[in-house]
């Protein structure tokens, strides 16, 4: 076993009545890693997180955190985990600093250490000037930042962030993403779930895609993209459309089809054709190009291919 393994879930099963939420789930996370945990609604992400945090016990399999068995009775492991919940879980009738002091105290912090951590966290999430204000006077983004600070105040070794940027303004979202990157640079191990692919691509060093209670794909972004077959698509606007240009494009090796609409050309090639330079050469020889774009597959395509579902319901 890898000695730096922070999380080790092997063949984990969790059932709610007849419904199997985790179906032989295998998930490993190494120290310092930022793992993106993706999956459609009902994939089992929340159940996996609850099991990791010791909020529920699995019905079968092995759940180890920091090399020790995790369960609802193991309080010591929880001391080193920070959970950023999807919903804002701070007390709206207490000030930001009182919230931080309360959550810090639950993890045994007191005195100078508590004061120092609280001040550091307020600074970290950019709420130092709002320390004595109550969250109910905050914007949604500021409340989310306080939510994160409350989960980090005890400086956990493992941070679990469950969709921390849902429903907030772009400025707060950027702040949270930057903060998460800084946290990762300090060596904190992070599990990050999100429905926003661009966030996952920007932050995570590895991605696990879950569906139906198990991990169906795992690897770096490049590895995941390499795991699916796709078509290269080139869009170009020709300065002078002509039948000759169309025929020459069709003749290029790897090109499967050429669709023409006015001056717009959509050239579809088989995966890995690597014929973009040849397409440009033909287009220039036939009067030139006014615009050009290449559609590369992204994580969304990988997700769609593997699960058959869109990540966000509003995109369906």
């Amino acid at each position, binding site marked *: 076993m890898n000695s730096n393994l922070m999380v080790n879930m092997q063949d984990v099963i969790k059932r709610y009545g007849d419904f199997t939420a985790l179906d032989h789930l295998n998930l490993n996370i190494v120290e310092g890693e930022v793992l993106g945990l993706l999956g459609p609604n009902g994939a089992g992400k929340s159940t996996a997180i*609850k099991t990791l945090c010791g909020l529920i016990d699995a019905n079968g399999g092995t759940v180890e955190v920091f090399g020790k068995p995790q369960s609802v009775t193991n309080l010591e492991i929880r*001391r080193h985990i920070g*959970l950023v*919940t*999807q919903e804002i879980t701070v007390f709206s*009738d207490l000030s930001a600093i009182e919230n931080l002091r309360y959550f810090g*105290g639950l993890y*045994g912090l007191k005195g100078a250490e508590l004061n120092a951590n609280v001040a550091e966290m307020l600074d970290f999430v950019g709420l130092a000037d709002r320390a004595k204000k109550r969250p109910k006077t905050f914007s949604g983004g500021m409340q989310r930042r306080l939510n994160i600070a409350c989960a980090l105040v005890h400086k956990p070794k493992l941070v679990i962030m469950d969709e921390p940027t849902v429903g907030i303004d772009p400025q707060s979202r950027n702040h949270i993403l930057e903060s998460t990157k800084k946290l990762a640079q300090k060596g904190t191990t992070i599990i990050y779930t999100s429905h926003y692919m661009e966030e996952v691509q920007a932050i995570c060093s590895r991605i696990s895609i879950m569906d139906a209670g198990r991990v169906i794909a795992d690897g770096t972004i490049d590895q995941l993209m390499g795991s699916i077959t796709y078509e290269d698509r080139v869009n170009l606007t020709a300065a002078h459309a002509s039948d000759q240009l169309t025929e020459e494009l069709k003749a290029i090796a790897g090109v499967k089809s050429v669709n023409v609409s006015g001056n717009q050309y959509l050239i579809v090639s088989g995966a890995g054709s690597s014929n973009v330079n040849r397409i440009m050469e033909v287009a220039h020889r036939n009067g030139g190009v006014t615009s050009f774009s290449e559609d590369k597959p992204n994580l969304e395509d990988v997700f769609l291919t593997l699960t058959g579902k869109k990540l966000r319901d509003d995109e369906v």
Partner: protein
Amino acid sequence: MGVFTHIWKHYNKRMVTRPRNYILYILVPLTIILANFFANIGLNPGGDIMGVFVPASLMVLAFQYLTGEILMYNIFTSLRGKMAERLFASPVKRYTFITGMTASSFLLNLLQSAVIMGVITIAFGVNLGNPAIFFGFLLLTATVSQLIAALVSGITKSRKAADGLYTAIVLIMFVGLEFIPPVSAIFSWITPLGLAWQGIIMNMEGQTTSALINMALLTGITTLVGWVLAPTLLGRRNQPGKHK
């Protein structure tokens, strides 16, 4: 002990930030009871002060039950749904959260009854009988009211439903004692409120043995509610896994 104190202080702080709690649970009852006292004395000048104190003591006990609302508020804002998930993800036992928040409303309850009874005793020179027995009834009422509130929170799905059920329980106990003819209100006399009120009157009249029997019965009911029902139901309802 450290974390328990931390949680207890947290809920105290949340009460302090709401002065309306003190207005609602101490000033209002005190004002109503004192106004009742003065009105009765005015209507019956030179009459027996005990005749005025007997209904006042029932009101003190009934007001003690009101603080159960604070515990239900704390339970519904802290031990349900995602907040419960967040708190239970910390290295603190669930039992510690429940006892910490209960201690806070329990002490407000005792403070309330002690302030009201202290003011009445000093202002009107009422003989309370054996002070230990008298205080015992206040203590038991403070305990059983919190436990019933915890129990009601455990068997209801929303704060609104809990408020409704808890108020109904208290009203049934109170109305049975105050308005229904005693012959048809035997049930009310064996409720926690009835036993405590009866016990306080017996203690004031010097019937110590009878008062102690009532105290034993009340202790039995308190124990039944506390150790058998409330933790079981609270534990079942407040499971993070149940709130997806």
